[in-house]
């Protein structure tokens, strides 16, 4: 039966081609590497040579994701970093290496640029460590977080975001991860500093950075590292909660402040405290991108604009506005301790539009606001209220 046969011949050819296609695509995977901060490099109009120089310097100072190294100026502990870095391995006694890549890289990216495989999907986006800005901490707004702050975040997670709790990791592991986060942040900040340094070069440098220890460590790395070291001494002073006023009165006072002109929480958090006030603001790291995009749309230099747009599409996430918190959910990102809320109100949230009340509002008033905010989820009876039996089935 030629009919069936020639048909079969054709089909079998298809089959073979299909199999060949399926088996192709073989190949070894390249070792993990840090990604350059292309957004900044493009913004500073770095040449490929200059980008390469920055990469070389950074590798000399910080090593690679599989094999990190640090200069003593950073104050980082290499042993801890080794535990966190590298590919995921667990040895025969169950000790794990590659903690960062197991637990963090998926969202925060291997470089700590907040561009992991899942990043674009998350809401809010994972933190980009490279600017060295952290939100939830016990230090003043502009300061770096302490090591304990990072450990605390790792331990509790950040409710209301995709950051989960790592409470079940051992202390050593959490400690190593916090150290590695600092390492990535310092690396990112140094990179930024190096890239920005090209701006100040004069003709004698021939477009290259001076590769002296004095410049590389003294003017870039050490500046960054010192601010991290200073964090330990920058803790916010917390006065005692006023004891002379009962809770109800404190809440009432807090409410007054909440809607008042001075604290003006209502402006963003809204008269309902649902976070439905002004909601069209951006994070500190998204705002420049929004503005840059606007600028690029208007620029004459089309080639430059198209290159920059390409970089933004690949290396920056589409900016999202940051909505003010819905205070009626009872979800507090930076922690639910009264202390945490005090920090948030006192110092504001670094990177976010939440301003610092320090200086404008007296410490005891901050405590009143804290009490009011903590009472909000329970304010309206029947909202998130008491766990009552469900209404009987009844319709009309």
């Amino acid at each position: 039966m030629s009919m069936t046969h020639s048909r079969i011949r054709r089909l079998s050819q298809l089959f073979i081609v299909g199999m060949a296609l399926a088996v192709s695509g073989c190949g070894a995977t390249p070792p993990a590497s840090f990604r350059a901060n292309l957004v900044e490099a493009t913004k500073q109009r770095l040449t490929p040579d200059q980008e390469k120089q920055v990469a070389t310097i950074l590798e000399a100072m910080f090593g690679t994701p599989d094999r990190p190294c640090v200069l003593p100026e950073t104050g980082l502990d290499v042993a801890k970093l080794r535990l966190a870095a590298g590919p995921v391995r667990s040895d025969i006694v169950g000790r794990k290496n590659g903690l960062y890549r197991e637990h963090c890289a998926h969202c925060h990216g291997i470089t700590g640029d907040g561009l992991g495989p899942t990043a674009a999907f998350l809401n809010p986006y994972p933190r980009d460590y490279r600017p060295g800005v952290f939100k939830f901490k016990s230090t003043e707004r502009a300061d770096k977080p302490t090591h304990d702050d990072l450990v605390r975040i790792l331990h509790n997670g950040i409710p209301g975001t995709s950051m989960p709790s790592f409470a079940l990791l051992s202390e050593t592991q959490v400690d190593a991860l916090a150290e590695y986060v600092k390492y990535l942040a310092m690396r990112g900040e140094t990179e930024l500093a190096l890239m920005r340094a090209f701006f100040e070069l004069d003709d004698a440098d021939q477009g290259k950075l001076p590769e002296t220890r004095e410049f590389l460590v003294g003017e870039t790395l050490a500046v960054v590292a010192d601010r991290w070291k200073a964090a330990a001494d920058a803790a916010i002073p917390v006065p005692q909660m006023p004891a002379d006023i009962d809770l109800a009165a404190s809440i009432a006072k807090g409410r007054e402040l909440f809607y008042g002109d001075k604290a003006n929480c209502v402006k963003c958090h809204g008269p309902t405290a649902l976070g439905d006030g002004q909601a069209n603001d951006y994070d500190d790291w998204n705002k420049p991108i929004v503005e840059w995009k606007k600028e690029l749309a208007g620029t004459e230099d089309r080639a430059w604009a198209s290159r920059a747009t390409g970089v933004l599409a690949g290396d920056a996430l589409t900016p999202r506005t940051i909505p003010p918190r819905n205070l009626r959910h009872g979800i507090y990102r930076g922690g639910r301790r009264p202390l945490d809320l005090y920090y948030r109100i006192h110092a504001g949230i670094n990177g976010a539009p939440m301003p610092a009340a320090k200086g404008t509002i007296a410490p005891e008033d901050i405590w009143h606001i804290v009490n009011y905010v903590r009472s909000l989820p329970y304010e309206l009876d029947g909202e998130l209220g008491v766990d009552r039996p469900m209404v009987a089935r009844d319709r009309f």
Partner: protein
Amino acid sequence: MSDHHDHGPVTRAGETADDALHHAEHGGHDHGHGGLGVYLAVFLALCFLTTMSFLTFTPYWPWRDQPQVGWAFMMAVSCTKALLVVLFFMHVIWEANWKYVLTIPAAMMALFLVIMLIPDVGMRNRMVSQERALHMARPSDVRLMEEAGAARETAAHGAAH
């Protein structure tokens, strides 16, 4: 689908199967069914029944405060209508016994599916979570809105008089 079909007619594929089966089908009762009269009667019955079920919606329906009575009545009416359509318009009343084989299992399975959904989905309010209750419509909300509506109407009436 059992042995009693063994002696069924044998057709030749040369002629169209439909033609051949036309004889098989109608051989016994050549155009004995249907007819304008029957269809008109069924049509009138259907119209009457539609009006009947519509009755529950009018003020003349005596069981206003017991919606279940109305529902049962309407379902009964619907089933009767469905039965009429199936029996006469779809000619099932004139068909052989295969009609049971085809229709009854489907009807049973359909019913069974719905019945099995009831304990879980139909009675789901027993185990509702707080987060959901927070956002779910509640009878009390309807009451609130009715009160608001009543207040408006009273005001409107007051203004009118």
